[in-house]
C-alpha cells in the first residue's frame, strides 16, 4: 500500500475534497447544502489525518484517535446545524442562506 501510492496522492485527493467542500459551503444557497459542504471539508481533514498516521507514524495511535474525535465533532456539528436549520425554517419559512438576513427571530 504505502509502496504503491505516494502520500502526496492521498493528500491531493484530500485537498481537492476540501476545496470542493469549501466551494459548496460558500456558494450554495440552501443551508443544508452548506452543511453538506462542511461535511466534505471535515472528511478531507480526516483523510489527511489517516494518511499522515499511516505513512509517517503507524505506531502512534494519535492519528486514528483524532480522526475519531473529528468524526465526533462532525456528528455534533451536523446535529446542531440541522437543528438550527429546522429552527430557521420554522421562523423564516425558508432554508435559503441569503433570505435569512434579519436579526429578528
Amino acid at each position, binding site marked *: 500500500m504505502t*509502496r504503491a501510492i505516494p502520500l502526496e496522492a492521498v493528500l491531493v485527493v484530500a485537498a481537492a475534497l476540501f*476545496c470542493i467542500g469549501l*466551494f459548496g459551503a460558500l456558494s450554495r444557497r440552501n443551508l443544508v447544502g452548506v452543511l453538506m459542504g462542511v461535511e466534505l471539508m471535515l472528511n478531507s481533514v480526516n483523510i489527511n489525518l489517516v494518511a499522515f498516521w499511516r505513512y509517517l507514524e*503507524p505506531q*502512534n495511535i494519535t492519528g486514528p484517535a483524532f480522526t475519531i474525535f473529528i468524526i465526533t465533532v462532525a*456528528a455534533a456539528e451536523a446535529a446542531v446545524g440541522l437543528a438550527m436549520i429546522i429552527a430557521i425554517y420554522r421562523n423564516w419559512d425558508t432554508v435559503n442562506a*441569503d433570505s435569512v438576513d434579519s436579526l429578528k427571530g
Partner: protein
Amino acid sequence: MDLLIQIIFGLLAALIIGAAMMVVTVRNIIHSALWLITSFFGVAALYLVLEAEFIAVVQVLVYVGAIAILILFAIMLTRHISSEGERLLTSRWWLTAIVALGLFGAVLLPTLAGQTWNIPLPTGPAGTPAPLSGVEELGREFVGQFLLQFEVAGILLTVALIGAIVIAFEERSRRRRVLTLSEEYTLRQRQQATAAKQAPVATADVAD
C-alpha cells in the same frame, strides 16, 4: 499487486472527487445528499485502502448511518422549499469558485512541484510491526493519553445533543396542540364551571 492497488486508488479518488463535485453542483438537494453519501462511502473505502478498518467502519456508521440520515431528514422536513427552478448558488458563486480553486492551487502546486514521482517511498524496515489501529489500542489510549480530549468530546456530544433538542424543540406554549374530543369536552365543562363561579348570580337568573 501494486498496479492493482493503484488502480483501486485511482477509482476511489475519482469516485470521491466526482461525487463531491456532484454534491455541490446538482440542483436537486436530495440528489445532492445522495451524492454526499456516495462520497462518504468512497472515503470509507479509502480508509480501508489505508488499512484503517476501524476508522472505515466508524465512517460508515457515523457518516452514512447517522449524519447522512440526519441530513436527509432535515431536507424532508424543510421540503417544500427545495423546489426546482430556484437559484442553486448564491449570486457571487464565481468568487467562491476562484477562492476554492486558488486554495487548491496553492496547496497543489507546491506538492506537484516538489514531488518526485515514481520513487519508492522510504518505508520502515522489513520487520516493522503492523500499524496500530485496533480497537483495543484506541480504547486504551482514550482512557490514557487522550483522556482529556475524550472527556471533552463526550461533553461536546452531550451539549450538542441538548442544544439540538433545545433549538429544534418548540416551546410547549408555542406548539400547536390539537385537543381531542374528550379534552375539548372537559375544557368546556371547566370553562362553564369557572364562568358559573365568577357570575353565580347571572347563572341563577338564567336558571330561573
